[in-house]
């Protein structure tokens, strides 16, 4: 479906009230941007800049205080059930159900969608094979290494062939080699499947390595820059990295950086 995975963020604001004191804490401050269907973006920012809050709003676990967030024209919180089989997420911890084997974890979303058991098993097995875990389909999560568990979580997300795929610090806790390999798998799979992908990370390297668009979040939850890494020549990427780093440290936007993204638009 054309545009089904396009994300529109308009004047998005999220305010939390502290328990006890009732004091208002602004987590997101008037965000405005658009992500096209099939596009891949990385959201980078320091801890506490509202990345995870944004992701929760995108998943539909929380409601915006002001403004609107829409995927394919529908609000994930208000039209919660509409996103059945459309949206999938991979989280920082694998969040596998410990009482289910690898294959049973992967088939879980298909069970929720009411697919036939044969189809569930066939598709779950195919995805485990694709991610190199064919031999471990009967293993329980505690019998697998961190990298293997995260691959199972990836298979669980991809098995429903989602239109929108979200990853929240999904590779940050793994060792560098495993994280890089999984990141590459994530990018390749998202591209092959034509999925709109949003990767939230606090690691600048990870955001740039995705090779797509990078949204730089500052505190409190505001957009400092919207950069298309592909528009930057390979020789300038090191300078770009340094500029984003400085931007994150100063928590201010840099008028030079959004330029390539605007030119692309």
């Amino acid at each position, binding site marked *: 479906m054309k545009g089904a995975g396009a994300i529109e963020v308009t004047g998005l604001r999220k305010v939390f009230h502290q328990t006890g004191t009732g004091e208002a804490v602004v987590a997101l401050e008037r965000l405005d941007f658009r992500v096209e269907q099939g596009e891949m973006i990385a959201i980078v920012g320091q801890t506490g800049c509202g990345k995870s809050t944004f992701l*929760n709003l995108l*998943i*539909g*676990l929380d409601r915006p205080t002001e403004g609107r967030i829409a995927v394919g024209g529908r609000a994930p919180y208000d039209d*919660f*059930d509409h*996103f*059945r*089989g459309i*949206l*999938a*997420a991979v*989280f920082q*911890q694998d*969040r596998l*159900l*410990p*009482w*289910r084997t690898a294959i049973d974890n992967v088939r*879980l*979303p298909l*069970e*929720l969608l009411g697919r036939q058991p044969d189809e569930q098993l066939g598709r779950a097995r195919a995805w485990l094979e694709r991610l190199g875990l064919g*031999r*471990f389909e009967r*293993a*329980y*999560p*505690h*019998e*697998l*290494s961190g*990298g*293997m568990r995260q691959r199972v979580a990836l298979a669980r997300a991809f098995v*429903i062939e989602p239109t929108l795929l*979200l990853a929240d610090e999904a590779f940050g806790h793994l060792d560098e080699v495993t994280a890089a390999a999984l990141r590459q798998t994530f990018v390749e799979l998202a591209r092959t499947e034509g999925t709109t992908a949003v990767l939230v990370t606090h690691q600048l390297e990870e955001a740039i390595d995705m090779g797509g668009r990078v949204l730089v979040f500052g505190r409190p939850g505001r957009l400092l820059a919207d950069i298309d890494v592909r528009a930057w020549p390979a020789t300038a990427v090191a300078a770009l990295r340094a500029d984003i780093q400085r931007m994150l440290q100063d928590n201010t936007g840099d008028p030079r950086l959004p330029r390539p993204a605007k030119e692309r638009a």
Partner: protein
Amino acid sequence: MKKDEAIASETVEALEARMPFRFPREMVVGLLVLAAAWQVLSLFVPPFIVPGWERIFKSLVTLRMDFVLVTLARVVAALVVSFALGLGLAVLMYSSTPIERYGRPLVRLLMAVPVVCWILFAVLWFRWVEFRIAFVLVVVCAPVFLVDILDAMRGVSRDLRDMLRSFRPTRAQLFTKLVLPATLPAMLTSWKINLSLAIRVVTIAELVGAVTGIGYGLVVAQELFSVAEVFAWTLILVVLLFVAEAVLTRVEERVLRWRV
């Protein structure tokens, strides 16, 4: 073999190694030492206070074993009813905050009432002996099941809840795919606690009005002033509890084999 594969195969072997029956050497040695000390003590103390093992075993063979089955049946039936009731009420309280708010204090009240009081209420309220015993057992065990299960349901990881919600389950799916299996370990622990509780409570309940069961057997032994018989019944109760706990532990190992 790759590192990942090595980790997986090692842990599978470790898991399998844990599964076969392991002889409880420490427990057996401890019990034998206690039995020996008992026998030595019986040589220095009159048999109407501490009877020797020979006297206890002589009494043991004369006991009515059908009483053991009767008591066991009462315990199992009451536990099944208590579990169903506890689970049902836990689900109800879990799905409705107002019901939980009003229900929790009542459950606490029930749990605060001593067993002896429940037995007296049962005698005063009900005529049928079996109903009296069942009432006491259920009123004592059901709240324990309820509180344990409800707490476990409330304690289900928010991370797992959010993960599942991202796939848009129905309420029933959220419950059956996440909440119920996540609560299973607490349910089994609650069964163990209640089993031990029920075996102790049923004996006291049978003391009042029953004409069958271990409790009745104890009353008869006391009336005959047969200390050896009292010890024999006690021995049977302890063995019954040990066997029942061992069975539950095996069930737990099977059902919760996914645990680290």
